[in-house]
């Protein structure tokens, strides 16, 4: 089968200094809205109003997107804490059972020793 060649974009296609287009401006605006809803510790220190180029936009977009993911991941981890505690409670209960089993085993071993002697 013939493979259809697809040309690569020219080197000049890449231009992080290109002024942001209307779509990127809107994306930044939406991310600013989302950022305002994040707890303070997740907010970036980037002044979004000063963004002029795609390269600057890219840095902001990445920072807020990652912050949103991080905030949700941390919140999910927080929500999981009570269940971990519950699990610990079970582990503690299981551990509390162990000495009894050990004791039983110990008694059995002691009984065996007594029988031998």
């Amino acid at each position, binding site marked *: 089968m013939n493979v259809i060649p*697809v040309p*690569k974009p020219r080197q000049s296609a890449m231009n*992080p200094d290109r002024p942001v287009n209307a*779509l990127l401006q809107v*994306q930044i605006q939406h991310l600013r*809205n989302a950022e305002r809803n994040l707890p303070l510790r997740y907010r970036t220190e980037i002044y979004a109003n000063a963004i002029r180029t*795609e390269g600057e936009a*890219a840095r902001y*977009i*990445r920072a807020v997107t990652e912050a949103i993911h991080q905030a949700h991941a941390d919140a999910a981890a927080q929500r999981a804490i009570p269940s971990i505690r519950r699990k610990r409670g079970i582990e503690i209960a299981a551990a509390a059972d162990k000495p009894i089993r050990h004791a039983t085993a110990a008694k059995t071993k002691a009984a065996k020793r007594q029988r031998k002697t």
Partner: protein
Amino acid sequence: MSTGLDQLKHIVVLMMENRSFDHMLGSLKAIDSRIDGVTDQLSNPDTTGASVKPQPLAEFQGQLNPDPDHHFPAVDLQIFGGDASPTRAPNMHGFVKSYFSQRRDVEHSQKIMYYFKQSDLPVLSTLALEFALFNRWFASIPGPTICNRAFAHYGTSFGRVDMNPFDIIEPFKSIYTRLINATPKHTAKVYYYDTTSSTMEVVNLLQNQPELFGTYKQFLSDCDKGLLPEYSFVEPNYNDHETDSGEEVASDQHPDHDVQAGELLIAEVYMRIKRNPKMWASTALLVVYDEHGGIYDHVVPPPCTPDKFTALANNTGTGMEFKFDRLGVRVPAILISPWIPKGTVVDRVFDHASIPATITKFFLGDYSPRSPREINADVFIEPNSGAVDPNRNLLSLLTMRNDCPEFGVQD
């Protein structure tokens, strides 16, 4: 008799940015007369009254600068030619006038009529000729990106015709929520390019359900491993940026981003599905553009069933309210699967509300509530439950094609 429809397990939608049908695929009329592309009879008046014909002079980058206006009032001008009377009729005669208003340069304004030669776009042209090309796929709204993409995610834009953040209005739910909350549970993912490009669905999906998202790298890996969800929505790279592994050129094809970078993206998505025989046999890929980006197309957008919402006169920018009762300008749309007969041309009317309509009907069957626009939108893949109308089933082959094209990157 079993057709390709019975094999279908995954649907992938790749939504590109801001190019009209005539601009990207209009040249194909010369190859196949069934394709409703560019002819010698088409023209638009410029601001001097001269007639401007479409010409195959589109360039990959640097030509449509400034970005052609495609907000609601500008698109109204493009469709109605500047007629604001109550008895006006759409004529697609306002594209050059609209572009002129941005730079006040008559010669430059004519570039809005330019289209690509078939040889310029080897990927899109080949896919269009090899699989199912939609002659009548329109943007959902004669307006910009965000509200049009909302139709692809929700089947409505909740009354918005602009780029502002919108709220989801109950009872309507995104296609992803419908799928993952269903019983039995279905799988769905939005793959953005990477966190530096992110998504255009920030305020609702990313902010509230970030777990829905994966990266394009993950998409490629999921194709290789056969782990694609039942429904995948893929977003292109929206900006030029550096990564640890090098430079990433924007691949969304939004003017003034490089069109060839978008060609590479489309080729890679296609080839990655195709290279996994299991995925290739069980996946349908829709390549579609969110809206026309202010660029010329000759087909008048048809009226449609009004939505539940109305955009008020002071929100449209035209001084007239909009009941979502007319579709936006026509965009390129191609459905790809080895079960589709070569050279299929579809004349039925679709818009982006057809995406959640199709996914919902295919995976969930009857589902309520959905917006009036979505309920009335046609589906591009028939539900495979019950009797299938053979005249509507695009994945109609009884045996899988083995003559599908392959693409390779040319250095």
